[in-house]
């Protein structure tokens, strides 16, 4: 009985944490909205013919001059805010999650290997991590963008902006994973089950991925949630610095960047609605991250 409950302790904790429940609901709603954006959204922001400048700058319905068709108003291009946000969340999540996946694979792989082999290999990986940390994310993004432009034929460049940005964000995030994986691996290396596996003569790759990896997933999962939030924010920031996505493929960050122009002009909704949305998403993800941390580190409860 106790054993059973212990096993689903996470679930139990979850049911008794209102913050986590609300966060999960918000995050789920946003993610669902993002996934089903094509069916939920009034217009497709990618389909230029589906909206018109004629409808530009309409306020949300509760303000004068609104068009009830656009519940939260329109932006300066006549795009429905709700549609933009749904599609924006979709893009932000895709970028965030793919960046995270790349960062996790790269970081965990290198971190595991550094922790496993130690010594010189470890030193090299950590110095590479230092180099990465010393490069501001904006420059990484610029460089990746630059390489892509130099290497790829022009016709695909525009399509690859998302990939380029994703890669740049991933490169700024992998160090976190590498450091955590490395530190956890060092701890695991002293555990006897690892020694048993090495002793048997198992291949290092098997030891790392079959034996060690499942045991260090806890802290990595926490990093994942926190970094997903960072990735989404980083994308917004890069967009602000002008090296994010083009305005016609609006991520949440791009929407906020565009909205910044209307901070003072009276069209507050163009900035604040996407910002609120982004904050809701990021806060939810962070709360879930905190929650996971508590689950994995019961001593902090």
């Amino acid at each position: 009985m106790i054993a059973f409950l212990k096993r689903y302790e996470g679930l139990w904790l979850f049911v008794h944490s209102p913050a986590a429940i609300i966060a999960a609901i918000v995050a789920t709603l946003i993610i669902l909205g993002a996934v089903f954006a094509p069916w939920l959204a009034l217009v497709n922001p990618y389909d230029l013919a589906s909206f018109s400048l004629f409808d530009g700058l309409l306020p949300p319905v509760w303000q004068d001059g609104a068009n009830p068709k656009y519940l939260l108003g329109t932006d300066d291009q006549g795009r429905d805010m709700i549609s933009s946000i749904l599609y924006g969340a979709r893009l932000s999540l895709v970028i965030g999650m793919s960046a995270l996946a790349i960062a996790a694979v790269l970081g965990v792989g290198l971190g595991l290997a550094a922790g496993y082999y130690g010594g010189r290999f470890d030193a090299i990986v950590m110095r590479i991590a230092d180099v990465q940390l010393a490069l501001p994310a904006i420059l990484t993004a610029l460089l990746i963008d630059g390489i892509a432009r130099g290497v790829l034929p022009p016709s695909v460049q525009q399509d690859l902006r998302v990939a380029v940005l994703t890669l740049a964000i991933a490169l700024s995030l992998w160090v976190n994973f590498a450091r955590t994986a490395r530190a956890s691996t060092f701890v695991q290396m002293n555990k006897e089950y690892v020694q048993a596996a090495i002793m048997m003569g198992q291949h290092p790759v098997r030891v790392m991925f079959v034996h060690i990896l499942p045991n260090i997933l806890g802290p990595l999962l926490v990093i994942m949630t926190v970094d997903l939030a960072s990735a989404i924010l980083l994308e917004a920031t890069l967009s602000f610095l002008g090296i994010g996505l083009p305005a016609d493929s609006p991520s949440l960050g791009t929407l906020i960047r565009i909205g910044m122009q209307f901070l003072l002009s009276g069209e507050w909704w163009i900035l604040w609605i996407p910002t609120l949305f982004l904050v809701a998403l990021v806060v939810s993800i962070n709360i879930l991250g905190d929650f996971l941390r508590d689950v994995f580190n019961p001593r902090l409860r």
Partner: protein
Amino acid sequence: MLTIENLSVKFPSRFGAFTAIEDVDMVIQPGEIHGLVGESGAGKSTVGAAVIGLLQSPGYIASGTLKLGDMDLRALTPEQAHAMRGDRISMIFQDPQTSLNPLMTIEDQLIETIQAHSDVSTSAARQRAVDLLEEIGIKNASERIKAYPHQFSGGMRQRVVIALAICTDPDVIIADEPTTALDVAVQSQVLKLIQRLAKDRKIAFMLITHDIGVIAQIADRVTVMRKGRVMETGDTAQVLGAPKHPYTRALMDAVPPLDHKIDRFRVPQEEGAEVEDALGQHAEDWLLEGVRGASTGLMLENLSVKFAGPRTSLLRKPEPYVALDDVTLTVRPGSILGLVGESGSGKSTLAKVVTGLVRPSGGTMTLGDAVLPGGKARPRNHPSRQLVQMVFQDPYSSLNSRHRIRDILSEPLWFYGFVKEAEARERLAESMLALVGMPPDAIDKYPHQFSGGQRQRIAVARALLARPRFLICDEPTSALDVSIQAEILNLLKDLQAKFGLTILFISHNLAVVRQMADDTAVLRNGRIEEIGRTEDIYAAPQADYTKSLLALTPVMDRAMLQARV
């Protein structure tokens, strides 16, 4: 006088309140050392924590009285309780490595504590601290008081801990496993110190320990606990010499004696569940089939291991640290060699060299009649990888907690290519579980669903599924309670006899080695002090070191205790 009556402590949890201790009664007179003994989960530490008011949240005292003299400890406000702590009741923790603040000098910690409870000047407090350190046997105390905790050895550190506990002249000291982390020689000194303090300063000690030998040696009275309840209480000689409660008797039976060898431990059949022999037959047959033929011995000649020391200068090469120094020993085929030594003697390094985890810097190893390459020179597919298996000390870390028992047990079968079919592997694994005394349905579970003893059985099963000829047991029972230790030792003995295994049995516990080993080697600072037949060594030790080890090990001499009743 510390009086505990009907003490119950509960830990409310999401699964309902868990009663950690229930109806505990105990009286400790000034100057008395009161032993509190029991296995893990007995609630003995909870008693101590309740007395000093340090119950881990969310535990609370549900009922009972706690009195120190006339003072009702339960009636104190948190501030009063905190002022009382240190002043009247103090505590000594198990591990001297972790119980001192690493960032503060001994001096600061002592002065701070003294000044917390008495209004004295810093210089007076310092003088008192120095005197106290001298008193408890730290030489050159006025100098050494300026040092940080890490600059003291383990034994000295525990003395400092004791100094901190007594610097405010408390009436009661709760000593929670005060010597468990120490080597025998140091343990003996610390125990003597406690005895002296009780006598000279009339301090009442609550000595919490799992080691009956320690109790037998210094406790005046003893209380035996199990699962939160008091089983038996009384004079030490009476309780240990003529136990009335069956649990106490069973506990006493499980303690390995140092002075003679017994064939098997008597254990109450409890944890190693009743398992039909027939189920284990399959595994037994499979093992016997693989181990037919002569046993395999191990010979180490002039084996040395050096580790690189910390580099301190660009110009000089760092001084190497010698872990093993010219070790030569032979494990006779089909026998058990016991390897004893204190912590840092190189016992575990030796195991790691044999298993190939550590590269020897010199010497040769011969397994059976083939030379055993060391370290990275040993290829991953070397036959010794299968022939030599190991049972580790810590059953909590030696099984991958993210793998099911099925995966853990099938791995060697799959890896060494013994059994190709997954289903056949599983059947064999189930049978092996039965052979080591585990129910076959364990196969679907995860390691954390088992107790330490059960896990160690699983670890043994895993080792056996590699069809080893040579088994290394590195402190296989030191993390286990004494009754579980007895079960595991019995199991190992049975298996060894059945399959003709050769075993290198590493332990710091002289009594355990005496029960297990045919031959014994005594290791100290990486050198062999003495090696020979176990009976010879225990009966007539040659090396001074061995002699002192044997002399200092606290023993429970039942005959003597019985005589005192």
